[in-house]
């Protein structure tokens, strides 16, 4: 049964409210967007989106994108080789829009969870993201979906096409989530 879950999203929203409240108390704050960039680069969508969701560049730091794009002939055990000019173009796009240059809340949380010079090769190796998804990746998780990997964000984050990962509308198994709590 698919339903609306308020748990994690509710917590995140509460944290956002504290930030907003901070402004009146003169605590440093920032005007952060709730949404991450939805990729539009046609070469990126074509070449990378052929095998997996074209992830938002704002989910990894520039150093990670450079590392991933620098070894496409062994892309997690698979050849994703493209022409040198295409590779350069996609790398430039990802680096220019990476998490360390982004101002949205999620990118800031991602960067905040990484230590200096840490360049994870997978989005799921980012501590902030790994922590939020620990439940569904836990072997004892018995709900649906039961992902082996997290390559298709839209399976649960049903508003991902508008860059919205924080919506309370995400789709997981109701019973299992209640049991988990």
């Amino acid at each position, binding site marked *: 049964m698919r339903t609306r879950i308020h748990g994690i999203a509710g917590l995140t929203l509460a944290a956002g409210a504290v930030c907003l409240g901070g402004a009146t108390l003169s605590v440093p704050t920032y005007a952060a967007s709730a949404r991450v960039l939805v990729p539009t680069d046609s070469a990126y969508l074509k070449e990378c989106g052929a*095998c*997996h*969701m074209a992830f938002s560049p704002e989910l990894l730091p520039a150093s990670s994108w450079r590392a991933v794009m620098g070894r496409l002939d062994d892309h*997690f*055990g*698979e*050849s*994703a*080789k*493209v022409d040198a000019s295409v590779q350069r173009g996609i790398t430039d796009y990802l680096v220019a829009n990476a998490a360390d240059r982004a101002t949205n809340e999620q990118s800031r949380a991602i960067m905040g969870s990484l230590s200096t010079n840490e360049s994870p090769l997978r989005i799921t190796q980012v501590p902030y993201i790994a922590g939020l998804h620990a439940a569904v990746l836990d072997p004892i998780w018995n709900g649906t979906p039961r992902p*082996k*990997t997290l*390559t*298709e964000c839209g399976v649960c984050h049903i508003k991902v096409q508008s860059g919205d990962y924080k919506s309370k509308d995400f789709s997981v198994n109701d019973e299992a989530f209640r049991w988990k709590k």
Partner: protein
Amino acid sequence: MATGRGIVVAVAFALLGVGGRACAGPVDDLLQQFQAQGASHFTVAAGEALWERSVTDPKTGEVRRCALCHTTDLRKVGKHATTGKAIEPMAPSVNPKRLADKEKIEKWLERNCKWTLGRVCTPQEKGDALTMIGSR
């Protein structure tokens, strides 16, 4: 008169020949290219055998074959073995976008031969595979 008709027929064939070459699809171009690289006659049967050939990846121990992602029935939607993303059918009869772009064909033959067989395919194997896919 007979000679005149012969010339007309010859001219017609010549025109057809030129037209035929201009209209030759990317697969024909590639098949000629593979033969120039030493391949001989291509057959659907050899392509089918290649499609079902299982190879164990030495690094992961996984048993891989074309059909693992693309299914045995090329008219069906496949599924990427790692990411789970849907792969449009390979058969041009149900998916006309297949075998229509030479660069795309070459790119994916290189990538997928390396993943499946652990090496690039020979010109003979590539020609057999394209011949089989084209027949579906």
